[in-house]
């Protein structure tokens, strides 16, 4: 846009008009998000630094009590319960993200090797289950893993679980549920990466007598890395804050950070403690995003990494 050859007053009037246009289009949405999301999050962060009052509601003297509670210090001295929950959340996130990569990588590759007209249908086939509500999908796994089902029977006869116990509730069921839930989120970005793969590099590696493993590692893997990183962001961040799956499949010993936080706002109410847990989740989210961006920038694929 250029305003050359126009008098200064006309130019400034145009600028005012442009500014008004910007305000008119952007202000409703921006203020909606600020009022209904930024302010509430700021409020929640404030709550974390307040004391726990009656009914678990926040009270005024500012304190770091809730963070101490989160680290396990309570009325009766230190107990490891909350720390276990934190470690379990991290562990479940790591394991399930790793497993999702292991399954999604060959699947994404396989789709690109199929005929072009089949690819959209195959992708749809992968994505469609995630259109059903998370609660229903998890309920499906409850049906499958309950005591007396064929899968539980199989695990029993292999001696993996005690008789009549069923595969859920357990940490195993939570991992399974997480992998199931997040698989499509990894397949899609990886597929996009494989689709764009420059096969000339692979041929060059083969011409230079690289072993298949080396050809993969030097010619294929680096090219899929942006997709892989995008997938990891899409899987690991929501997995760390997952609420529904551990709540339904995990039972008392499968609790994750999301459940710890949610409990503080309902039954065993302690808002400040819950808010402190939420802050931890926020930090994890932003550290994850920031780290991926940095790595992505170094790889030169800036925009693709953060969706």
């Amino acid at each position, binding site marked *: 846009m250029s305003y050359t050859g126009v008098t200064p007053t006309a130019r400034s009037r145009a600028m005012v008009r442009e500014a008004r246009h910007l305000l*008119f289009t*952007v202000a409703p*949405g*921006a203020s909606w998000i*600020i009022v209904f999301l930024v302010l509430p*999050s700021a409020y929640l962060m404030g709550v974390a630094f307040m004391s726990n009052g009656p009914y678990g509601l926040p009270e005024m003297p500012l304190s770091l009590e809730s963070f101490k509670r989160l680290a396990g210090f309570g009325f009766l001295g230190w107990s490891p319960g909350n720390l276990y929950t934190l470690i379990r959340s991290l562990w479940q996130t790591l394991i399930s993200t790793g497993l999702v990569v292991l*399954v999604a990588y060959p699947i994404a590759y*396989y789709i690109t090797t199929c005929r072009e007209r089949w690819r959209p249908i195959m992708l749809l086939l992968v994505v469609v289950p995630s259109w059903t509500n998370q609660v229903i999908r998890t309920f499906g796994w409850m049906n499958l893993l309950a005591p007396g089902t064929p899968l539980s029977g199989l695990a029993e006869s292999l001696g993996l679980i005690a008789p009549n116990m069923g595969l859920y509730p357990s940490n195993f069921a939570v991992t399974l549920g997480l992998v199931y839930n997040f698989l499509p989120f990894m397949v899609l970005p990886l597929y996009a990466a494989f689709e764009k793969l420059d096969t000339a590099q692979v041929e060059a590696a083969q011409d230079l007598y690289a072993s298949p493993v080396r050809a993969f590692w030097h010619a294929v893997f680096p090219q899929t890395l942006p997709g892989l990183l995008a997938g990891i962001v899409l899987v690991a961040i929501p997995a760390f804050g997952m609420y529904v799956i551990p709540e339904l499949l995990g039972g008392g010993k499968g609790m994750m950070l999301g459940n710890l*936080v949610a409990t503080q706002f309902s039954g065993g109410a302690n808002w400040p403690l819950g808010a402190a847990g939420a802050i931890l989740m926020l930090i994890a989210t932003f550290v994850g995003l920031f780290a991926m961006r940095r790595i992505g920038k170094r790889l030169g694929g800036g925009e693709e990494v953060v969706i």
Partner: protein
Amino acid sequence: MRKRTLQRGLTGFWWLTVAFLYLPLAVVVLFSFNASNSAASFSGLSLRWYRRLMGNEEILSAFANSMVLAITSSVIALAIGCLIGYGMYRHRHRKLGWLIVLIYLPIVLPDIVFGISEMAFFVQIHDWTGLLQPGLGTMIIAHVTFQIPFVALIVYSRFVGLDPTLFEAAKDLYATPVRRVVHFMLPTIKPALISAFFLSFTLSIDDFVISFFTSGPESATLPIYIWGAIKKGVSPEINAIAALMIGAVAVAATISLAFSRRRLT
């Protein structure tokens, strides 16, 4: 030779994965037709669970709530998100970093943090002013908040894909801004608006966590009802209602497949 075995192995792995993805859904549908009460054994076909659904007032009202919530929030988000998407396009040469951050915030924020901070905030505001009583209203507000970014990004990318000279041509053709919007802009971004509406609708129907924390006692949606039923103890009725929702998704998938086919040919 080796390549062939690899390909065959991958084909097998693909079908295993597909089975893994559809097994839980298939089980829900199968057991919704189960004649017996048991969740572990199948003893013949029957429609009794579906018949029981029909008379259940709670489920019908949950269904109505889900629909009202999804449609209202999608319409509001469409209007607001469309404006912001156009604003982002028109002023893209400016430094709008803060706006991008703002737009991405609802997408990256973990559901549980999103839901709980809104819930805590609404409760506090309600304490002070009496406004924002938890119910459909607060749920609509929350849903619009997570739908706006998706609408904005879809509309924005549609505008970016257009030839910029079109805007000049429209300026020459239609004198007033209102006419330009009605005769040029809305028709050109119509596909984007339709897909944004359907995405918003799906996001709303799919959501459980945010609805759960912002809902009131009277505003349970279908997922919230199902959640409550599961927590009370697994009853075969849940299978029937869940199977109906899976059926709706299957229909949606078929439609979108038909659309993608048409786009291909």
